[in-house]
């Protein structure tokens, strides 16, 4: 009598073992397939079952590559920005030096070029050093000028250097007049709450004097500073004292912080320097830059 339940289990088990043997033989056979057949099977599997995983790898690889390229591009942009930033400063310095050379040619031999150095210490914001001194013919009270006008005056002279004060200093004052010579006054500094609010003021002008906004104010020569150096342009009225005197705010020709290369007037300079700043070319630094940018954009225009 056959064992209960054993025969069907035995046949099934035998079939299972045979099937396993066939699969094992197939597994060994795959190593003997022709390379083209092996490649074909691989391609089919890669295109079907493995496709999403391969696509993920490709996408992640592209993302990594793009991230690397972005890093490189960012580094290049940073380098270019640094070059441009330096370039801008060089262009500016170049422009200033060319203007200074032109001024030196017009002004004559009694001007000596100098570089300005700011101490940067608290309380010395209106003071500066220049690298020329007594040996170069610089004297106390000498005017310090930039291409667009008066920067300040020398306070103390040493053998090879000097200390100056710019027009923002509380002790600065210079005798000045309107460029047409009709109205005289004293220009000094009016300190603001912040340094950016420091202004120049023309005081002591006659009440009935015709002083219009935009009129150029130059040094009058009634003092140590020679005549004809631009100081600023009339901005607006500050105050009037009764009916006999008026004061005006002046927009300065030169911002002291921008003056790095200057000319210092030496002993023996002429009393009238109006020729160094022709009336039709007097302009602030910003106006000059705007004009040159406009002419660069439109070279054929008036």
């Amino acid at each position, binding site marked *: 009598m056959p064992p209960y339940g054993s025969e069907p289990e035995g046949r099934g088990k035998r079939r299972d073992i045979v099937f396993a043997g066939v699969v094992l033989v197939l*597994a060994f056979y795959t190593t003997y397939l022709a390379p083209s057949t092996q490649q074909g099977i691989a391609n089919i599997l890669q295109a079907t079952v*493995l496709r999403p995983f391969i696509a993920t790898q490709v996408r992640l690889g592209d993302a990594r590559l793009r991230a690397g390229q972005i890093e490189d591009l960012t580094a290049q942009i940073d380098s270019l920005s640094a070059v441009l930033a330096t370039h801008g400063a060089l262009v500016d310095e170049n422009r200033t030096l060319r203007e200074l050379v032109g001024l030196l040619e017009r002004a004559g031999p009694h001007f000596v070029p100098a570089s300005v150095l700011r101490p940067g210490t608290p309380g010395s914001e209106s003071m500066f050093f220049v690298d020329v001194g007594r040996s170069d013919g610089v004297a106390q009270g000498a005017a310090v000028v930039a291409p667009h006008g008066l920067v300040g005056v020398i306070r103390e002279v040493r053998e090879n250097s000097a200390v100056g004060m710019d027009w923002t200093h509380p002790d600065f004052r210079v005798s000045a007049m309107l460029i047409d010579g009709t109205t005289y006054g004293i220009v000094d500094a009016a300190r603001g709450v912040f340094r950016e609010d420091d202004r120049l003021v023309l005081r002591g002008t006659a009440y009935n004097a015709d002083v219009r906004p935009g009129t150029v104010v130059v040094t009058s020569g009634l003092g140590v500073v020679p005549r004809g150096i631009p100081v600023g342009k009339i901005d607006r009225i500050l105050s009037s004292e009764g009916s006999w005197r008026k004061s005006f705010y002046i927009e300065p020709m030169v911002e002291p912080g921008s003056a790095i290369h200057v000319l210092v007037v030496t002993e023996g300079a002429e009393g009238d320097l109006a020729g160094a700043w022709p009336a039709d070319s007097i302009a602030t630094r910003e106006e000059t830059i705007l004009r040159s940018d406009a002419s660069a954009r439109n070279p054929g225009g008036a």
Partner: protein
Amino acid sequence: MNEDVRIRAWVVVGLLFVLHFLLHVGLSIGAGAPDLLTVALLIGAREVGLGPAALLGLVFGLLEDALSAVSFGANSIAMTVVALGGGVTRDLFVGDSRLFVVSYFFLGKVARDLLHWLSVGEGVRQPFVEQVAVQGTIGGAYAAVVGLALVTVTGLTREST
């Protein structure tokens, strides 16, 4: 109860299959990721008879061979034999004890690496010490830890009958 365990086991096999190729192919992690395909095969082999287990091993092996640059068929042989071995343990061990689970996955992975090393051929394979003794042991330990954790978390054990 056993049916519930069976379903859970195949779900785990499917997840391990996807995770293996996602880690190794999709994310290109390489040796840092465990050989989840062998772990999946070892779990799956104990759920079916010898024949289906061998077929599962052949399929898994062919998929690995499709991504292999050399010795097409080596993975197929290794995975088929490992699956057969796993299927045999189904009749010999219940599979409840932790010692068995750890040994099963460890030896299964080491055997897979050894069989692959043998099947690849002399001209291509790396030194035995490096590929089988060292990497195989590390891989086996990795697979044992992963397998034990999986079995513990998913409860893939059967009550003795």
